[in-house]
């Protein structure tokens, strides 16, 4: 029987396999993060959640410096509000096919079965369950399409009417025509379709067409039982993509070609902003935007007011993400180490091992906090560096600890 086990030595052995408990310092919208927020940030998350729950349509700005944890906040929010469809979007990546990209993300988030349910509910609402003689269902696709048009036509603008025809045809075909169901489902999932397939479905365009994607997105979000949150990261890139005319010192002035008012970048940004603001018209869609400073928010507001001043009413007071407080670094360290052991299935190691922040110590963490000034990304970079040294160097633990207790750490 084993009556004593040196867990500290065991932990070092595990680390020596080459696994760093702090592997990445940049959070992305693609890789899921399970680690929750530190205590000092919980009130901000609660505040954000209550804004989302109280407002069916809103734009919530979140302000925070680079590396402060804005994207990590997205994952914390998504994990807490699991009963909402949360979509992450980085504006840097989508200038073309804006609505199609959001549609694809939305479909990925909700999954196939809920998508089928939503379209089923829609078709039922449009009269697919009409009963002849009180009992017998008859599929009259033409009648259902007409009734659908009558019911939802007023919700869409003139230029969206052609797209609306396609969308209604796609949904009714998917639900009521078993012989074309497979093609209709591919269309519904946003696959690119050739003209032959579209003709068979009696449609003009697939969902790569921006207008079609927007109409479909609006229908799905408004008829989804769950609320939808769109988290747009780095929103200032909309205004940042064109520098103000006063700051530039260019030999070639674009206004010679494009006129004094707008540069091509400015036109592009305005177009993108207009599309984002169009999303605001979708009932039940809450938009969260992240910005680096209050000034960026003011610039964004200025640009929005040029397009539609009414939208300013939907913009809530910004929530500011500040740097870590000192207790946060200890919490982050302990949580990350516990998480590392749980994920690696090393359950036999007691988690109270980290009460003295083993294999580091309080002094090192204090040092890290002072140098990083509480910026979470900088903290993580330093932790990665120290753990890499513990894992991969030939120095023993006490040497590494001594080094970082006394000397400054460059990230």
């Amino acid at each position, binding site marked *: 029987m084993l009556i004593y086990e040196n867990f500290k030595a065991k932990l070092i052995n595990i680390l020596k396999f080459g696994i760093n408990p702090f592997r990445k310092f940049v959070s992305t919208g693609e890789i899921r993060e399970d680690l929750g927020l530190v205590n000092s940030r919980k009130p901000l998350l609660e505040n954000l959640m209550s804004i989302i729950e109280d407002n069916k349509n809103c734009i919530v700005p979140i302000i925070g410096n680079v590396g402060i944890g804005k994207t990590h906040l997205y994952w914390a929010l998504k994990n807490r509000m699991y009963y909402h469809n949360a979509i992450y979007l980085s504006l840097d990546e989508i200038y073309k096919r804006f609505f199609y990209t959001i549609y694809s993300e939305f479909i990925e988030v909700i999954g196939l079965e809920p998508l089928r349910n939503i379209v*089923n509910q829609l078709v039922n609402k449009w009269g697919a*369950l009409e009963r002849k*003689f*009180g009992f017998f269902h008859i599929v009259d696709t033409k009648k259902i399409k007409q009734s659908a048009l009558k019911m939802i036509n007023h919700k869409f603008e003139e230029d969206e009417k052609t797209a609306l025809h396609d969308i209604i045809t796609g949904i009714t075909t998917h639900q009521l025509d078993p012989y074309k169901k497979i093609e209709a489902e591919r269309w519904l999932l946003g696959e690119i379709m050739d003209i032959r397939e579209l003709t068979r479905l009696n449609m003009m365009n697939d969902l790569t067409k921006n207008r079609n994607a927007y109409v479909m997105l609006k229908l799905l979000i408004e008829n989804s039982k769950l609320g939808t949150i769109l988290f747009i990261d780095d929103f200032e890139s909309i205004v940042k993509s064109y520098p103000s005319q006063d700051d530039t010192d260019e030999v070639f002035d674009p206004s010679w070609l494009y006129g004094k008012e707008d540069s091509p970048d400015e036109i592009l940004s305005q177009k993108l902003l207009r599309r984002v603001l169009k999303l605001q018209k979708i009932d039940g869609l809450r938009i969260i935007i992240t910005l680096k400073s209050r000034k960026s928010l003011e610039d964004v507001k200025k640009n929005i007011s040029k397009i539609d001043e009414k939208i300013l009413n939907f913009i809530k007071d910004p929530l500011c993400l500040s740097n870590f407080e000192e207790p946060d670094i200890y919490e982050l360290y302990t949580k990350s180490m516990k998480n590392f052991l749980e994920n690696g299935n090393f359950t036999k190691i007691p988690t109270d091992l980290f009460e003295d922040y083993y294999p580091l110590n309080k002094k090192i963490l204090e040092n890290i906090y002072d140098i990083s000034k509480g910026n979470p990304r900088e903290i993580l970079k330093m932790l990665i560096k120290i753990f890499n040294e513990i894992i991969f160097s030939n120095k023993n633990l006490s040497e590494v600890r001594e080094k970082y207790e006394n000397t400054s750490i460059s990230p």
Partner: protein
Amino acid sequence: MSDVDSYILFDAVNNILNEGEFRGSIISKCIDSSDSIIFSENITISRSEGIKITQGLRVGFEEVTYKRVAFSRKLDYDNNTQDISIEYSILIPEDVMHLYDEGQFSDAFPFTLNLLHTAGLYLRDPKNTINHLDFFKGEILKNPISLIMNGILVADRVVIDHRGDPVFYDCLIVGRDQDEKLKVSYEPLANVDDKVVEYIIILGIEELKI
């Protein structure tokens, strides 16, 4: 049978008669040689003026040149002017109809056979037996209506299994319990032995389209 509260509008056996004009999904069972059934969206019941149904659909068997043939035809019923008398009329509760609606257009059954005209799939009659169950073995037939002993079964589809027994999907069942009280239930699936089936009629879609 999972009993659900039903709304009995008229029951000749238990002397129930609810006066008024009712709308919804109504099943009325007739007292005639073929136990025909009337499906309708409305019924008017009054002690003085009797029972009236407009734009109903009557389904059953009739005798044509010594043969019994399934029929379904539209009917405006008035018990003062017509010979047919009604045994009971039941308004199916909306929550049961909601379950019935949900079972429709199921993904799992895309290739269902629709018959153009109403036809008898099975009739238990010593002189004029009809039994096409073997012919349709393994097929899915849309809109079956069946009389099983003393109960009516209306389903979205029926499949004849490998033993030649009908399996009904998405069914509404109306029948009498041991105390002769009328009951309504919804069953997603009903496996029925053909020995207890009186008749199965497959409703033609032409009747429903017009």
